[in-house]
């Protein structure tokens, strides 16, 4: 049974446990953490909507524990990623793909949307998208109701009219 656990870091690197994907130059040998893309910030996929950027230092990542020796010596398929935004406490779990790397990227995108919603409320992109969707749904319902009403009226009209005589 796999349980979630924090990534195991050497004790001396404990102070770098937050923001795993920043770059830390320590002492020789230089142990560098995996980096996500080339930037320390996660910018929104939909940059046109200007989502609040996420700082890697504010993120805490968890992978499934019990990975054993890792690397070639293990063949684990549990590629679920759990990502937490420490300042807001929002947690996202992503297992959309079978690739750890992809799940990490997706988790960041999803988390960014949620954090944006959290801090910007009505001004956030997610909020606007939801409002738009609700509006469209209301309009569709209204249209469907109107169409139904028209059909009902037409039916009533046909019932009250005398039936057409058969041609001679």
């Amino acid at each position, binding site marked *: 049974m796999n349980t979630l656990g924090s990534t195991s870091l050497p004790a001396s690197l404990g102070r770098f446990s937050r923001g795993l994907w920043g770059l830390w130059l320590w002492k020789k040998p230089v142990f560098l953490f995996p980096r996500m893309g080339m930037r320390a910030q996660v910018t929104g996929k939909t940059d046109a909507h200007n989502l609040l950027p996420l700082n890697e230092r504010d993120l805490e990542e968890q992978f499934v524990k019990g990975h054993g020796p890792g*690397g070639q*010596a293990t*063949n684990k398929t549990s590629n679920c990623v759990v990502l937490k935004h420490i300042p807001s406490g929002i947690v996202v779990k992503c297992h959309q793909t079978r690739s750890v790397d992809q799940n990490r990227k997706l988790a960041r995108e999803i988390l960014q949307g949620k954090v944006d919603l959290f801090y910007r409320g009505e001004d956030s992109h997610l909020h606007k998208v939801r409002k738009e969707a609700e509006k469209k749904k209301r309009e569709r319902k209204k249209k469907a109701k109107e169409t139904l009403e028209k059909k009902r009226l037409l039916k009533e009209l046909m019932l009250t009219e005398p039936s057409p005589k058969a041609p001679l």
Partner: protein
Amino acid sequence: MWLRFMKPWGLRPRGEKWKGRLQSLLALQPLRLASGCRPPSVTARALVNHWAQLFEERGVPEARESSEYIVAHVLGAKTFQSLSASQRCAPITDLQQEQIGELCTRRLQRMPVQYVIGEWDFQGLTLKMTPPVFIPRPETEELVNLVLHEQSQRCQEFRRKRTLAHQSHSWPLILDVCCGSGAIALSLLSKLTQSRVVAVDKGEEAVQLTRENAQRLHLEDRIQIVRHDITSGVNREQLLPWGPVDFVVSNPPYIFHCDMAQLAPEILSYEDTDSLDGGENGMSVIREILSQAPMLLKDSGSIFLEVDPRHPELVEKWLQSHPDLGLSLLATHVDFCGKPRFLHIHKSRDPGSRRTQNV
């Protein structure tokens, strides 16, 4: 429900190589389900629970994950989580149930999930998987990211200096040693659209699988796949069809020979042990790659290796004791579990021109 008898072809004596067993693996004998296996209802969720419980009873590791991947695969999805709630509750057809049953029976024989479903994802690509070719591990995705980052740094540097040399740096040449299924080579090709890769492996099945994956992904025009055993010596003609390379990247067999016997049945019985066993101290193939690298690399080139966590120290000492190679360890990177896993090695430069460690 179908009745078949089970033939235990999956598990074989340890130490015996897999080669030549592909035919018997694929000619699956009729199988019999254990009694009491009829699932109560036929939704995806119910099937996952049923098979997860059976896997757990039979001691199959990652019982729930295995069950979820197999059911999702038959339903046309990559993961169970990516299925919608309605898909998970929709009724499963008899044919799908039979397919799931067949695949799960292979998993019961400890076949790795990746071989059971015949594919796996790596860096956003879906690659075909067939035994005994080595299955790419999730850690190795980070090796690809390191190469991509280094390439990006170089492009920026040369753009800043505005040298003409920047032109050739836009078209990196990469040598992938021990390419296996082609995971590293093909993900680099797909991300670096101007790059070219020479992918090398000593195994015929690996070469064929890399070729097939390259064709599936329409990347065959920028890759050359060579069957060659690098421990048999340098072969510049075969390895350098386009001249010296910018990057030598490799996930070579690096397991210490004494640790091989402790590997899980999934690995020992189905994957090619030659793609795992690195000999004494796990260094035999690593040493070969480093010995040949100076002849294969451009002066500005870099070597990126995935290794065992005990190797950074061993490699650094070994490079220091072989100054004639002119290589030095620039950096060690950890994997997502915090273990030292990747080495960045380059040709030693004089202190005057040493680049700052600002990657």
